[in-house]
């Protein structure tokens, strides 16, 4: 579904991503891990059109994504969440989600129906009139997820959705992600916490200093020497 070849991104002197290849298979949950600063969010920004790479290709179901604007990429079926949650603070939960649904629907009535469905899916119906700024972090993350879902994507990019959540919230979020995947939406998630990735991803890629250092199934990754080395000295969080 998503093909990345030879991707290189450099910012004046600093190479954030270098010669990266990856394949995200349709219907699966693909995980990206790596220490802080490894280039994970940069990769998401490249895929979603917020950055343009110096070299390389990004193909989505045959479409070339490089040079497209973020809204065009969303139209093609990729939605994302952000590492630091970007909800629309003064708008209500309901209206936040409606904006997402406008991606596919011009008619307000239809958008409203979709939004109600999604509110239900993420269990935010009882808070639907609250301003997004009044929500807890966990709820905001769910809102952002819901909003991205409302765009009816085929590929969902999740940037550290679990960060800042306590174990209960984290579990709820995780099961929601699995449920979404169960409905056929491909998931590409960035995570910092090892065991979350292990428990849910079908395929994992490990990034360090912008380069791929390992790739494979969770079992393979957990045994990879380079991966363990990269994480040594890092705050190895076993939540």
């Amino acid at each position, binding site marked *: 579904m998503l093909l990345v070849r030879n991707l290189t991104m450099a910012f004046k002197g600093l190479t954030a991503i270098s010669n990266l290849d990856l394949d995200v298979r349709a219907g699966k949950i693909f995980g990206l891990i790596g220490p802080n600063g490894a280039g994970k969010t940069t990769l998401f920004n490249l895929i979603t059109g917020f950055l343009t790479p110096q070299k390389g290709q990004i193909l989505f179901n045959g479409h070339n994504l490089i040079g497209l604007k973020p809204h065009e990429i969303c139209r093609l079926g990729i939605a994302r969440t952000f590492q630091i949650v970007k909800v*629309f603070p003064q708008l209500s939960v309901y209206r936040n989600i409606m904006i997402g649904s406008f991606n596919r629907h011009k008619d307000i009535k239809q958008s409203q129906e979709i939004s109600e469905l999604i509110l239900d899916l993420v269990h935010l119906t009882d808070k639907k009139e609250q301003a997004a700024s009044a929500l807890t972090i966990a709820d905001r993350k769910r809102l952002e997820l819901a909003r991205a879902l409302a765009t009816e994507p085929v590929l969902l990019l999740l940037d550290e959705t679990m960060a800042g959540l306590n174990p209960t919230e984290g579990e709820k979020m995780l099961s929601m992600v699995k449920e979404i995947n169960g409905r056929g939406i491909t998931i590409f998630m960035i995570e910092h916490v090892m065991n979350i990735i292990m428990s849910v991803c079908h395929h994992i890629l490990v990034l360090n200093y912008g380069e791929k250092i390992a790739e494979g199934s969770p079992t393979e990754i957990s045994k990879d020497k380079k991966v363990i080395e990269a994480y040594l000295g890092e705050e190895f969080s076993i939540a």
Partner: protein
Amino acid sequence: MKSVSFSKIIILASFLILLFLPLYAGSYILHVVIIILFFGYLGSCWNIVAGYAGQISLGHAIFLGAGAYTSTVFFLKIGLSPWIGMWAGGVSGILLGLFVGYLTFRYGLKGHYFILATMAFGAITKVIALNIDQIGAAQGLIIPFKASFSNFQFVGKIHYYYFMLFMVIGIILVCAVIEKSRFGQILMAIREDEEAAESLGVNTFRYKLMAMVVSSFLTSLVGTFYAFYIGYIHPDTLFTPFLSIQITLIPITGGMGSVFGPIVGSFILSPISEITRGFLGKFSGLHLMVWGVIIMFIVILIPKGIIVELQDYFHKAQRKKLKE
């Protein structure tokens, strides 16, 4: 539910009062209310691009000026009735709005840079207008008074009053429609977080441009009214930052991003402006000093504008009640 019908009563009452005002108000009062309505209208227009879409323009006077000059020049040179000239002015507003909006949004100017760019356009327009002889240059243009409907010139204030009242009702309806529409919802999303909106499939460039053009068009429409009501237009009054700032203070006082905010704001601020100028104007600069203090007070005490602050207050009170 209580606060909703209360405000509806107030709106209806105000409308009725305004509708029948000329029956019992003298010429001066009518003039003051005309000014209030005029700035309330302008503030609402600005609100579309600034309150809803979040693009703070400090050069909006150029659209008013474009509308004024276009219809005035057509009237003076070829005798075109201002009723038609008004629409020519509207076209000039659209073109100017497209120009400014395209350049600023195409190059992604945001925040401070956007504010400065709009001011720069304002300054350039003023310099250009002061130097084009065909439109009067530094002398400005005088519109000779000859009362007739087709000339958009009337004896007394009543006709001007109802025109402005009509325009205000119109803009209120327009804003109400925008607020509820998909277009308005998207604008507000852009205001809240442009990147997030973009990532959700919103072509932020196109929507910001549309907001700017709608705003500039509606603003330029009353340029004609201004020209023919005052009878004299000049770059030093029409293309100044002072006028642009005046326009922006109205929604800021009353409530940005709300339908009635700018109107309410004008009813509060415009009389204060007129009174300070009327009473203190003779003490060179005093009224502007007071004006400066008033601006500071408003921005510090009610940054979101009266209507929005009141709404917030009521929501908080409601939530407190629910908790008890």
